[in-house]
């Protein structure tokens, strides 16, 4: 199904974007989602943002033609992820990682190198990323703890002495027999009462 799209709804760089399938509402929602996702990556340069959105939406639109039942938002988000995975792989020079791991490592590297702020046009750019940016990305690592050097720290029993040992055994006995504990509490209470009674005679 082809629906006319209002060109005013999208920015200038997207003026050529004409998806052949899907509703205008659905593509607008996809647009907003990709924009939100890029902004969540701290891509605030509107021009760069628009270029990336167009690229991602075009890829999504092509897929939508083949799978019109799928939601454009889902397709756009998947394409955004695919574009990022490819870009992280190129920039970090990694091909051996799983997709998930690569995305995690890439985002951590981008964060630590402060890439989105220092190289505002480099993120997801198709042309070659600046060398200093690549170096910064590859050098960025996050170490939550140093290498482990395991020690054994085993609790040693403390000899509590005869008095404490006897008290300990008694207490453990009391814990086993709650009736005894209650009884003792009553006796204590009665004694206190008796004491006050005696003292005030």
């Amino acid at each position, binding site marked *: 199904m082809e629906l006319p799209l209002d060109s005013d709804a999208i920015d200038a760089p997207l003026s050529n974007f004409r998806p052949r399938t899907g509703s205008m509402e659905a593509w607008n929602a996809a647009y907003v989602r990709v924009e*939100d996702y890029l902004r969540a990556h701290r891509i*605030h340069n509107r021009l760069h943002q628009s270029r990336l959105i167009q690229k991602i939406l075009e890829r999504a639109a092509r897929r939508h033609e083949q799978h019109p039942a799928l939601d454009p938002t889902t397709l756009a988000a998947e394409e955004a992820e695919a574009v990022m995975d490819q870009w992280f792989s190129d920039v970090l020079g990694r091909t051996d990682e799983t997709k998930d791991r690569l995305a995690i490592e890439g985002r*951590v590297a981008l*964060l630590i190198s402060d890439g989105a702020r220092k190289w505002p046009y480099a993120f997801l750019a198709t042309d070659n990323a600046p060398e200093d940016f690549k170096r910064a990305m590859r050098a960025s690592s996050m170490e939550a703890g140093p290498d482990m*050097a395991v020690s054994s720290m085993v609790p040693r029993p403390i000899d509590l002495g005869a008095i404490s040992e006897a*008290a300990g055994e008694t207490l*453990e006995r009391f814990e086993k027999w709650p009736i005894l504990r209650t009884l003792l509490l009553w006796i204590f209470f009665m004694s206190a009462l008796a004491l006050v009674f005696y*003292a005030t005679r």
Partner: protein
Amino acid sequence: MRIVSNEFIEPRRLARRRRTFFTGVFVLTSLATWFMADLLWINGMTGVEWALLILFVVLYSQIAIGFVTALLGFYVINRGGDSRQISSSIAPGEDVPLASTAIIMPVYNEDVSRVFEGLRVIFRSVQETKKLEHFDFFILSDSNQPNQWIQEEVAWVELCKQVGGFGKIFYRKRRQQINKKAGNVADFLRRWGKNYRYMVVLDADSIMSGAALVQLVQLMEKNTNVGIIQTAPRLVNADSLYGRLQQFANRLYSPLFLAGLNYWQQYDSNYWGHNAIIRIQPFIEHCALPDLPGTEPFGGRILSHDFVEAALMRKAGWAVWLAGDIEGSYEEGPPTLIDSAKRDRRWCQGNMQHSWLVFAKGFRPVNRFHLLMGIMAYCSSPIWLLFLIISTIHVFDLELKPAAAYRPEAFTQLFNYKIEIPEAFTLFIFTMLVLFLPKFISLFLAMRRKEEARRFGGRWPLFTSVILECVISALLAPINMLFHAKFVVFTVLGQGVSWVTQRRGAEGDDWREAILTHGGQTLFGMVWGVSSYIISPIFFWWLSPVLLGLVISIPLSIALSKVRFGQSAKTLMLFLVPEETQPPYELRRLRQNLAECYKHMRPIEALRADYGLLQAVLDPYINAVHVSMLRQRKPSEESRDYFMQLRTRLLREGPSGFTTKEKMALLLDAESMIWLHRELWCLPSHALAEWWRLAVRQYNVLTAAPITALYR
């Protein structure tokens, strides 16, 4: 094994010092007991009077210990200091090489900004000493609230980015909070202890200057027989009136007590749990704590671990020193009376557990004394209460007897000398002297030099502050007595103490909390007051200082919790401390940084409760940081199903129906976090809960100008 050498102080000299201390306590207590016994001994002693006398001896010996310590401190300070203190083992200008040291900060659901800004200040201060290469920093988190955890991770990354701290500042979050703080420290030692010779243990609110840290490591390197050096942290950064009072008292009075303690304790000192340096190897070997017989509250795991660790170090032959003269060690105190009571509740249970250990084999006598004093710090309150109640009964008893039999002694008699002052009054003055003289000696020491007095705001403000502090602390004493008595009784009965949920206003006050917490104390004071007045008006007036504190406990607690009153006192130059009049660099920076932090926009109300979870799922960077810090696990089929059901529910329904345990389970599962992030961004809006739709919209509104990548 005895590692402590005699080089530092000859055993005979140390024995002499200790003899002086204990003789002083004994003489003072004996003298007061003499007066008391004489007062009671009118027609011979009854059973009640014997009970009163015994309780009196126990109570008086407590205050005598403080008094004699302060007097010895005065003696030491007056002669220009103690030559036998650990800090004097390094000559001025002597350069002692350092060794690898870990600075560890165990945290548990603390104010994240305060923790990390504190760490930033410490890091920078060490950096300025040019000895940073010897130090590594560890945040050891036991936080079990999703928001705290995610905030901590975010703050850690941000701090490391800003100060270049990756590889120097580390963050560790335990999955299971076994054995609380002691378990957290033990976990660190098992993982990384071998990499370091020393560790400096900090509290979440501790600040230590780089110079102090370097000095501590140097002292340990110089004195190879020392296991622990404890600094004396000064209370700082208080805003409320209560906090500023405690801060002032700590700053003005503590030097006297610290000097006195060092005089007689020497290498048998104590460990207070933080702001101390510890030699790691012997600590690993000797200080892994076993459980006590029975279950909590008396048995089970040892809660107040520090005293026991000091005792175990001493038992193994390692020296434990108190370095009260090292500058640059700070901590923060509770802002209100109720917060202080809550802390005391925890400490009370921990200290009472030490009853098991007082007779433990191999412990040194001084350590047994420390344990006993820890117990008595709380048990003396029910004893005091019992003493006052029995006194009331005694007066009632005397009132019922024929008038001729009861006559308060109109004169003081000592070895047949009669002085025309009522004996009760003599005893009262004598007790007041023991209680308040140390405060006035401290005042004298501060006032004798104009420059020193100026650091406390000047002579007149300082004098006025001491008088006010004495009055307020006298009013607080009976309130604390009732709190502590309750804690002791509840601990013995194995009961928990419930607290009112706080709803503090901007001023730091909460009338509802104060009324519900102090209501019983007020009622008790009023009933007691009326009863004692009916029994004997004279006795009522003797009891009035105690009764007054109880009766006005609600407004007093509210007034003391007010930040405005604290600030007004500051404007009037009252309760000023040198850290306020001449703030050190570290504290100044901390204040500035925190002011900046608290300027950040807070998340909107609807998202605030689960903002940590929101960020961990939604924010691509925070999600990546969080996942990369989780251990990869291969889940079983059952857990995979469980997590799938949780994840789907979270996105469809939002987090409101989730328990903290469920949220933590998701946050701990790397696979779930990756899945949630992807699905959140992939699912069309109509498939998401309204909460998530709002989150996506609002999150980017908040990040309109994210100058700092994560700190929002």
